[in-house]
């Protein structure tokens, strides 16, 4: 076989040239290479599951003796595995546990009990038996929180505080339960965290916020009360990668406890591909290493994890089975009781088809957070790696939820509500800056932030002054209380109260439990008291159809009420005008033997409806057809068919009456057919189904062709513009116009119409 490069130019396929230009072909696809860690699952070097316990201590795990354990093995063996169930779990065939995952008669708790006794290799072996559909069922059952939710990313390239606050407020209004920001310049961290805190609590009280920065700085922000959770505590599946990440399982666990000691929710981060990217995969598959990460996460006492490859997503996606492995990661996390923020954040593909298809694996079963960061800002303003789904996809996302009756955690919003909440947030952050003596935010900046789509719409700020102020703010005692007080003094009492309530919730620590979020009505008013939802009071109880979380009631009503949805009751009105007085019903239509064409119209013609779907007046359409018939020297009679609204039946009835045997059937919406007596009802000479594309010229050509059939002169078929989108665009109107015609059906024979018209 010739290689493509050896093919001559004339031997190039036009089709392949078009395929080469498709978005999907901007991606990189490679064959597996286990030695480089480029294999998503089933590396020949992955260990086989094993576990030996002596005197209450693990002495062998996954084929390795304790003396050979690295620090991760030690941590997993001594902190993650539930040794009380481990022997039973390891003795249970992996296939059986895979069956339990998909069996609606086995409760979540029974699967989790066994999963918590499984070694990393055992967990991977269970997954090996499952296809994506089975994993999705497993995920729907194993997800920790009953109610699914979503997280937003709010950042911008200019790190503009008013825009951050406005975007955070919009994200909160749109229903995101968590909002994560980060920095372009690390020193901006306290201000970005501040803007997002004020913004979210303007949009909806109770939204959890974080600022992803270096670990120590992150902890300082949390201590100041500027953030309520931390997510970027990264863990890796090999010791060398872990150390390159400047941590150990113990330091990460200590950090988790440090955060919790300040009342801050913690979620670790891991994901397939990171070890290979860091050059320390040790020939193991990505999924096996991720299983190790998850057990480290569990052992460290993190309530949850963000995984699903996250920023490395393109790496597993370059390999066969990559997207399946990413779903497997989410399932593994859920199986062992970790809250899962399931990826779908960093740019994963150029292809919208591929992106959406991948999303369905988490979107349909539902996860604790479908995205571990839905970019609530445009991609170019996303400082996390692009944003696989962004602010420009809000409507698409809302429609997907409405299509599938799936709760993807994003509420539809009106332009009016969004503008109002953005204005409030921008004004609030302006007041905080003024109250704290920070470099002022001008009214012009506020005005820009309200209507902005991206930071391109924002004026530049004095970056030097902002950074100096940020340093002073971080070093000062100012924190959550100072901010709340500044807001209260400036009259933003409700926002101040929301922020103070976050502080009060911090004292209770209810949101430290697995998969905790706060629910509250949208808007700053009436957001309190907040209601915490977590694995403790909202455990996922999915056990098959009719159980678990169901999108119904007011939530379903809210998710289906997209702003584009219109009442179908008004669709017909533009097609009803005054009936033409030039068209008069004479009485019973009788057969004839003249050389004539019958134009048979539907029961609503020129009465209940007066215009076609293309907006043509019925009178004008008739005149065009009759002109066409006249062009060929024949005349036409017009009859109205009452017993059917079906085009074939109308044409057929006309042909029965026609002296020439030729009739044109015409529905009120404009669809036409040329019929002939003797043909089967559903057969025809020519059919013109694309009524939206039919013009008066086409109708005239239809008239001409009908006459030529009658004369026995072979006509060339009428050329009709093909618009395959018309049906898609107009199908609702088509259905409603047809319904109106059908309403006019009456039990009487065809009636002859007199049309007061003469050819030119």
């Amino acid at each position, binding site marked *: 076989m010739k290689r493509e490069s050896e093919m001559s130019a004339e031997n190039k396929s036009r089709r392949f040239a078009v395929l080469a230009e498709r978005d999907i072909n901007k991606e990189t696809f490679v064959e597996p290479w286990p030695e480089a860690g480029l294999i998503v699952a089933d590396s020949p070097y992955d260990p086989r599951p094993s576990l030996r316990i002596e005197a209450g201590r693990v002495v062998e795990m996954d084929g390795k003796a304790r003396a050979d354990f*690295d*620090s991760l093995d*030690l*941590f997993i063996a*001594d*902190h*993650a595995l*539930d040794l009380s169930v481990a022997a039973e779990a390891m003795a249970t065939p992996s296939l059986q546990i895979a069956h339990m995952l998909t069996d609606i008669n086995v409760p979540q708790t029974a699967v989790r009990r066994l999963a918590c006794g499984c070694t990393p290799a055992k967990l991977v072996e269970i997954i090996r038996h499952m296809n994506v559909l089975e994993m999705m069922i497993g995920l729907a059952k194993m997800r920790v929180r009953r109610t699914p939710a979503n997280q937003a990313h709010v950042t911008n390239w200019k790190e503009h505080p008013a825009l951050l606050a406005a975007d955070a407020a919009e994200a909160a209004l749109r229903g995101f339960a968590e909002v994560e920001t980060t920095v372009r310049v690390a020193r901006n961290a306290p201000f970005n965290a501040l803007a997002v805190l004020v913004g979210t609590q303007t949009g909806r009280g109770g939204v959890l916020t974080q600022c992803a920065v270096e*670990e*120590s700085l992150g*902890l*300082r922000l949390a*201590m100041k*009360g500027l953030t309520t959770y931390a997510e970027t505590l990264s863990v890796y599946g090999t010791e060398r990668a872990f*150390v390159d990440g*400047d*941590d*150990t399982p*113990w*330091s990460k*666990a*200590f*950090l988790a*406890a*440090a*955060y*919790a*000691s*300040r*009342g801050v929710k913690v979620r670790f981060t891991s994901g397939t591909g990171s070890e290979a990217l860091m050059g320390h995969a040790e020939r193991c598959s990505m999924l096996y290493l991720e299983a190790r990460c998850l057990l480290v996460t*569990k052992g*460290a*006492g*993190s*309530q949850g994890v963000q995984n699903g490859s996250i920023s490395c997503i393109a790496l597993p996606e370059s390999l066969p089975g990559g997207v399946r492995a990413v779903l497997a990661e989410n399932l593994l996390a859920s199986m062992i*009781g970790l809250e899962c923020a399931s990826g779908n954040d960093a740019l994963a593909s150029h292809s919208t088809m591929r992106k959406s298809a991948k999303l369905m694996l988490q979107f349909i079963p539902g996860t604790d957070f479908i995205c571990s960061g839905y970019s609530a800002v445009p991609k170019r303003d996303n400082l996390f790696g692009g944003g696989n789904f962004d602010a420009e996809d809000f409507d698409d996302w809302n429609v997907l939820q409405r299509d599938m009756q799936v709760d993807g955690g994003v509420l539809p919003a009106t332009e009016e509500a969004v503008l109002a909440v953005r204005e409030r947030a921008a004004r609030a952050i302006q007041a905080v800056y003024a109250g704290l003596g920070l470099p002022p935010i001008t009214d012009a900046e506020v005005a820009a932030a309200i209507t902005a789509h991206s930071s391109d719409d924002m004026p530049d700020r004095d970056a030097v002054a902002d950074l100096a102020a940020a340093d002073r703010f971080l070093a000062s*005692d100012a*924190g*959550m*209380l100072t901010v*709340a*007080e500044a807001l*209260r003094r400036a009259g933003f009492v409700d926002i*101040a*109260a929301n922020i*103070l309530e976050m*502080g*009060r919730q*911090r*004292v*209770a*620590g*209810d949101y*430290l*439990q*697995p998969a905790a979020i706060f629910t509250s009505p949208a808007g700053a008013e009436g957001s309190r008291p907040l209601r*915490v939802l977590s*694995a*403790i*009071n909202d455990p996922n109880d999915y056990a098959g159809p009719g159980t678990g979380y169901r999108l119904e009631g007011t939530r379903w009503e809210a998710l289906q009420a997209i702003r584009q949805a219109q009442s179908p009751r008004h669709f017909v009105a533009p097609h009803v005008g005054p009936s033409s007085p030039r068209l008069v019903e004479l009485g019973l239509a009788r057969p004839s033997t003249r050389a004539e064409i019958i134009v048979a119209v539907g029961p609503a013609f020129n009465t209940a409806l007066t215009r076609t779907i293309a907006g043509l007046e019925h009178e004008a359409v008739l005149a065009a057809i009759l002109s066409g018939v006249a062009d060929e020297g024949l005349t036409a009679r017009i009859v109205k068919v009452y017993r059917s609204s079906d085009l074939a039946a109308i044409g057929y009835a006309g042909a029965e009456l026609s002296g020439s045997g030729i009739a044109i059937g015409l529905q009120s919406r404009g669809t036409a057919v040329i019929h002939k007596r003797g043909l089967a009802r559903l057969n025809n000479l020519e059919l013109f189904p694309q009524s939206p594309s039919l013009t008066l010229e086409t109708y005239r050509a239809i008239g001409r062709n009908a006459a030529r059939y009658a004369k026995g002169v072979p006509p060339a078929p009428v050329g009709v513009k093909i618009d395959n989108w018309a049906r898609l665009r107009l199908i609702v109107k088509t259905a409603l116009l047809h319904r109106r015609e059908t309403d006019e059906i009456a039990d009487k024979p065809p009636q002859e119409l007199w049309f007061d018209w003469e050819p030119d």
Partner: protein
Amino acid sequence: MRTMDDIYPLMEHAADTLCAASGRPAAAITLERLAAGELTDADLRIAADALRAQAAIALAAGYPQLAANLRRAAELTAVPNAELLRMYETLRPGRATHAEMLALAARLEETYGAIETGAFVREAAAVYLSRGLTAPTP
């Protein structure tokens, strides 16, 4: 018998007894007190007791590792911010010698009564030593 629904959330079910690290009752964290200038940062800090209560809830709900983490967190509420950051830094790979790690464990245990965290650091010290994750002895 008290079920989880009678205990959790604490904000709802322990409203009468729930206090911040400062001792101020959660119910007294209000906008009015803020306006009066009565609130301090310690009023928005979680108390060790609240963390222990959350740890007990997590344990009862089947999350023993989270419970252990929350117990360590309860111990760490006693450690000032700056020192807590230094302690974390000490535990990062290659930062501290074995002896320095043991000293950290001792300080946690003796100064802050952080028994579980101290033991956790001792365990880390042993692993770091065996895996070459300690700083070279000066």
